[in-house]
């Protein structure tokens, strides 16, 4: 699979699109411990990868902005802790979220089972219009694969999930999965929910570092 956005380009501020619409979406990452949730976010937001990413306690919050046609899409990303006992804290992160990425590790069948549990929970408990993407991460370790691509694709199709295999390490499909989500999200004012207060507001630069790769503001 060809990767369109291997390298994050350095900051290109979306000033050009300032007149366009700004949508703000809350996105949550869920999945078993050590499948690469934080690494996917770090790759997407900062274009970095650490072989040993610190385990997330509670949750981490980051933002990243991508441009899609005439719209600036700002993701507010909640990266959650994976260990089962932190589960009771998870609803406060997916409550009101417009999108979720449920992550598993393609080299570990158990994590795929856990991903399915998360999907079920989201379908039951999260907002009915939530866009759910399934990410089979660690694609760079495909020689140790335990979850077949077709198996996950079929599951995703049955549940109308977006699905990609990703690699936070090589950056494969990382920007793509966020972009695919952005494309599926409704980009009118009402639907962007939390964005009401964010409309027209200058985008916070804070954590975001480099702007999203490739796709932005052509």
């Amino acid at each position, binding site marked *: 699979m060809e990767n369109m956005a291997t390298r994050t380009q350095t900051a290109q501020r979306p000033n050009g699109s300032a007149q366009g619409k700004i949508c703000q979406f809350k996105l949550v990452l869920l999945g078993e411990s050590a499948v690469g949730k934080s690494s996917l976010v770090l790759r997407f937001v900062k274009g970095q990868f650490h072989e*040993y*990413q*610190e*385990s997330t306690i*509670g949750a981490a*919050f980051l933002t990243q902005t991508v441009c899609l046609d005439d719209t600036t899409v700002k993701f507010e990303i909640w990266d959650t802790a994976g*260990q089962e006992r932190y589960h009771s804290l998870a609803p406060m992160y997916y409550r009101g979220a417009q999108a979720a990425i449920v992550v598993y590790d393609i080299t570990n069948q158990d994590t795929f089972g856990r991903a399915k549990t998360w999907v079920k929970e989201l379908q039951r408990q999260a907002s009915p219009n939530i866009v759910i993407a399934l990410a089979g991460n660690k694609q760079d370790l495909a020689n140790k694969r335990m979850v077949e691509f077709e198996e996950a694709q079929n599951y995703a199709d049955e549940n109308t999930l977006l699905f990609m295999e990703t690699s936070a390490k090589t950056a494969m499909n990382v920007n793509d999965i966020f972009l695919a989500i952005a494309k599926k999200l409704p980009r009118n004012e009402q639907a962007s929910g939390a964005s009401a207060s964010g409309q027209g507001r200058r985008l916070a630069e804070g*954590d975001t570092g480099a702007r999203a790769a490739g796709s932005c503001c052509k």
Partner: protein
Amino acid sequence: MAVATFSQIDEYGFERPTTFDYKTYEDFMSKYLRILARRSKRWEELKESEKTRRTNILKRFVRKGIPITRRPIVWMSISGGQQAREQSNYTYLQLKERISNASINETIEIDLPRTFPDNIYFTKENILPRQLFNILSTFAHQNNDVGYCQGLNYIAGLLILATKSEEYSFWLLKVLVENILPKYYIKSMSGLLTDLAVLDELVEINEPILHRHIKAIGMPWAVTTTKWFICIYSEVLPIETVLRIWDCIFYEGSKIIFRVALTLIKMHKAEILECKDLADIVTCFKSMAHNPKVIDCHYFMSRIFKLPGRLSNKQLEELRNKHALAK
């Protein structure tokens, strides 16, 4: 005048981030080194028995900071770790021999390289990660209600760095998890959820305007303070500040966690009130660690006993009972 230069690696083996504020740190250290020397001398002047026995003198000394070389012994003695060690039916070595559960061990193994990947003692050598594994797995095997909870890796890791003793670290971890922080790490994390509710009420009592503002933005305390409580500020605040907090926690117990939380929140009241949304507020809470007043651990520790006002163990117990029942 010569300007002191600080290594890119601190004395506990942590690599300083590229964004490290050397100027602020230098300003602080130039004062703090003198304080450390004075405190060290005062500790030497204590009678041998006064150095470990729980008295008001020792409590005051602990609040002003335990000298780095005395920490292992003093922590063991004031926390009840030494007592637990002496009264246990099994030695640490005997408990360690019981490590057998493959599933627990695998979970811990995954977290070893993810614990302090910015610390040279954990990344360049094999000894500390092995010790960390032994402590976490031995602990998990002797406490089924807790087992292994993510976050304990940071606490045990910092205990090893501070005490340089695998055995002391085990007993200190045991008293922290089993006596000092009740039910934080068990599978339901009920103690943590209770304490988050207690914090909410304490902020409401202490800072009603701030509380209303945070509520209006819709920030659940768990979002910003889970890591504060679970890691007891390790991986949150600067290491010197964390160790000074731990000095007091080992002596005075978990109410110190609330004193620190309330101090951080009160110190940053103006900044919090300026926050307009959740993103602002999360960023604001994260940036507290870089405040020179927080980096200056000696100043910060003097504030935690003044800013939040009165907070007794009795009051804390009542609040905990109330919120534990409320669930």
